[in-house]
C-alpha cells in the first residue's frame, strides 16, 4: 500500500471540492469495510482518502411523508432498526440484517454498500499483493487482461447478465432489495444533484466490466429514496448461503407483493447472488400477477427468471436454487398479508 493522505469532509460541498483538488488519485471512504479491504489486497490504490462519514446530516433516516429517505452515510445497522423499516419494509430490513456481521453493519454505510465491489475470488486474489495467493487475469481489475473465472473455479460466479469478459456476481444484498422497491439514488457532484433510478445505476459487464456504476468520479451518494407502498409490508428478503449466517448469497430473492385474497395483484421480484448486477426478474413477476398463488405457480415464476441463464462448469446448481428461492420468497411474502 502506498503512502496516503487522509482528510475528513464536514459537508458534501467540501467533499466534492476536496475530491476535485486531489486530482484523480482520490477516493471517498465511508465505513471503509470495502475500500480499505481492497487497498490491503493491492486492488484500490488511492493517494488521498476523503472521509465522508462525518458529513453533517448525511446520516439522516427520514420515514415521514411519502418517501423513505436514507442518508448516504447512514449505518446499515441503524437503517435496519429504524422502526418504519423494521415494521413496514421487512424486505429492506432483512436485506441489511442478513448481510455481513453485526460488527461490519456498525461500520458500513448504506451508500458505500451500493458501491462495494465483487467478491469474485479471481478479482480479489489476483493482484499479486503480499497478502494474496497468485496472480490471476481479471478484466475488472486490469481491463483487457482476460478472465480467469471463465473455465476456472466458477461455482460462485453469475449465471445471468454475464459476458465473454466477466461473470463476476454483484455482491450486495441491500441493492437487490432496493431494485425490487424501485429505489432512486441521489448523487451530488460538481454539476449539482442527479437522481438515478436504481435500474440505471448498475452497468452490465459487456466488454467493459471495469465500468460498474453509473456514477462519475467525485460524485457523492447523498441519499437513497424509496417511494412508500403497501407492498412493503408483504415482503421478504430470502437469502441462501453456504453457511447459515455471515456469508454472501449463493442465491437470494427480494420479493414484495400486493394480494387480493389469494390472487397476486402486483409483484416485485429481484435476484441476488446469481447475476452480474442486482437483477430485476420481470419475467417471474408476469407469471404470478393476476393469478392465485400456489406453490406450483411460484416455482413456475422462479423458472421463468432463469430462461436466459448461461451457467458455467460448476454453477449450474444456481439455476434451480435461484428458481426455488424465488418460489419460497413469494410464499413467505404472501403469508405476511394482514
Amino acid at each position, binding site marked *: *500500500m*502506498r*503512502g*496516503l*493522505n*487522509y482528510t475528513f469532509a464536514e459537508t458534501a460541498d467540501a467533499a466534492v471540492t476536496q475530491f476535485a483538488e486531489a486530482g484523480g488519485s482520490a477516493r471517498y*471512504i465511508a*465505513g*471503509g*469495510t470495502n475500500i*480499505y*479491504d481492497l*487497498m*490491503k*489486497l493491492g486492488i484500490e490504490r488511492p493517494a488521498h*482518502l476523503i*472521509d465522508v*462519514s462525518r458529513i453533517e446530516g448525511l446520516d439522516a433516516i427520514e420515514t415521514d411523508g411519502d418517501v423513505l429517505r436514507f442518508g448516504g452515510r447512514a449505518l446499515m*445497522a441503524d437503517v435496519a432498526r429504524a422502526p418504519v423499516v423494521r415494521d413496514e419494509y421487512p424486505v429492506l430490513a432483512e436485506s441489511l440484517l442478513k448481510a*455481513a*456481521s*453485526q*460488527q*461490519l453493519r*456498525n*461500520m458500513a454505510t448504506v451508500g458505500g454498500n451500493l458501491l462495494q465491489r465483487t467478491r469474485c475470488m479471481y478479482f480479489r486474489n489476483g493482484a499479486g499483493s503480499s*497478502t494474496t495467493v497468485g496472480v490471476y487475469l481479471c478484466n475488472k481489475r486490469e481491463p483487457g487482461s482476460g478472465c480467469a473465472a471463465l473455465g476456472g473455479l466458477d461455482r460462485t460466479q453469475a449465471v445471468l447478465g454475464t459476458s465473454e469478459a466477466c461473470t463476476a456476481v454483484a455482491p450486495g444484498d441491500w441493492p437487490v432489495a432496493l431494485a425490487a422497491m424501485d429505489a432512486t439514488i441521489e448523487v451530488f457532484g460538481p454539476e449539482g444533484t442527479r437522481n438515478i433510478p436504481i435500474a440505471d445505476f448498475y452497468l452490465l459487464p459487456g466488454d467493459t466490466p471495469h465500468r460498474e456504476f453509473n456514477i462519475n468520479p467525485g460524485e457523492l451518494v447523498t441519499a437513497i429514496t424509496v417511494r412508500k407502498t403497501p407492498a412493503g409490508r408483504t415482503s421478504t428478503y430470502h437469502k441462501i448461503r453456504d453457511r*447459515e*449466517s*455471515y456469508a454472501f448469497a449463493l442465491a437470494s430473492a427480494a420479493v414484495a407483493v400486493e394480494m387480493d385474497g389469494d390472487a397476486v395483484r402486483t409483484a416485485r421480484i429481484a435476484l441476488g447472488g446469481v447475476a452480474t448486477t442486482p437483477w430485476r426478474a420481470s419475467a417471474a413477476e408476469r407469471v404470478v400477477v393476476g393469478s392465485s398463488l400456489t406453490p406450483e405457480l411460484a416455482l413456475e415464476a422462479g423458472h421463468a427468471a432463469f430462461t436466459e441463464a448461461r451457467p458455467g462448469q460448476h454453477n449450474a446448481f444456481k439455476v434451480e436454487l435461484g428458481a426455488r428461492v424465488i418460489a419460497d420468497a413469494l410464499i413467505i411474502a404472501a403469508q405476511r398479508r394482514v
Partner: protein
Amino acid sequence: MTDHGCNNETSSGVTRRTVLGVSAGVTAASLVPLRLDAQEQVPVPGPENGPTTHISFQVNGERVTIDVDGRASLLDLLRERLALTGTKKGCDHGQCGACTVHLDGRPVSSCLTMAAKVDGRQVTTIEGLARGDELHPMQQAFIDNDALQCGYCTPGQIMSAVACVTQGQATDPGAIREFMSGNICRCGAYVGILAAIAQAAETMEG
C-alpha cells in the same frame, strides 16, 4: 447505546503520563496491564514511514494523542504502537471477528477501521473490561463454561458477547448464534461460548 461496565478508567494500570510517553514515541511498554508482565514481548514502535495524521482519542478511558500513518488500521495502532495486544489479528480482512473492539460502545472490526477514523472517539478493548482484579461477568462466564480452547478468538468473542447482552440480543440460543456469527472459532468452542453468554446474560445487569 450505553456500554455497561466497559469503560472503567483504572483497569490497566495506565496513567496519563505513560500514555503521553507513547504519543511522544518513547516507549509503549507501560501500557500493557502490569499483571501480564509482558514487557519483554512488546514491540517498540518505529517511526511511521508514510504521511501521518494527528489523532487524539480514548482507549479504555485513557486519552491517547499520537501521529498515525494514514494507512494504519486501528488494530495495528492498538497492537503495534500502544502495546494493547489483547486484541487479535486473525484475517485482517473483516472475516473472522478476532479483532473486535468497541468504538463509542458499538462492536467494530478494528482491522477494517482506519486508525485515522477514531480521532475524537472512545475505544474499549478486552483490556478495558475488568475492574482491577475483578473480571467482567462475561470473562468469568467464559472461564466457567470452558468457552475456549486455544483462546485466540476469545478476546473478540468476549467483546461481541458483551454487546450481545447489552443490546438485548441474548434472548434465546438462535438469537445469540445469529448475533455472534461474525466471530469465528477455529477450535469450535461454540457450545461453551453459547453457554457462557447465556450465563452472563443472567449475571450482567443490563
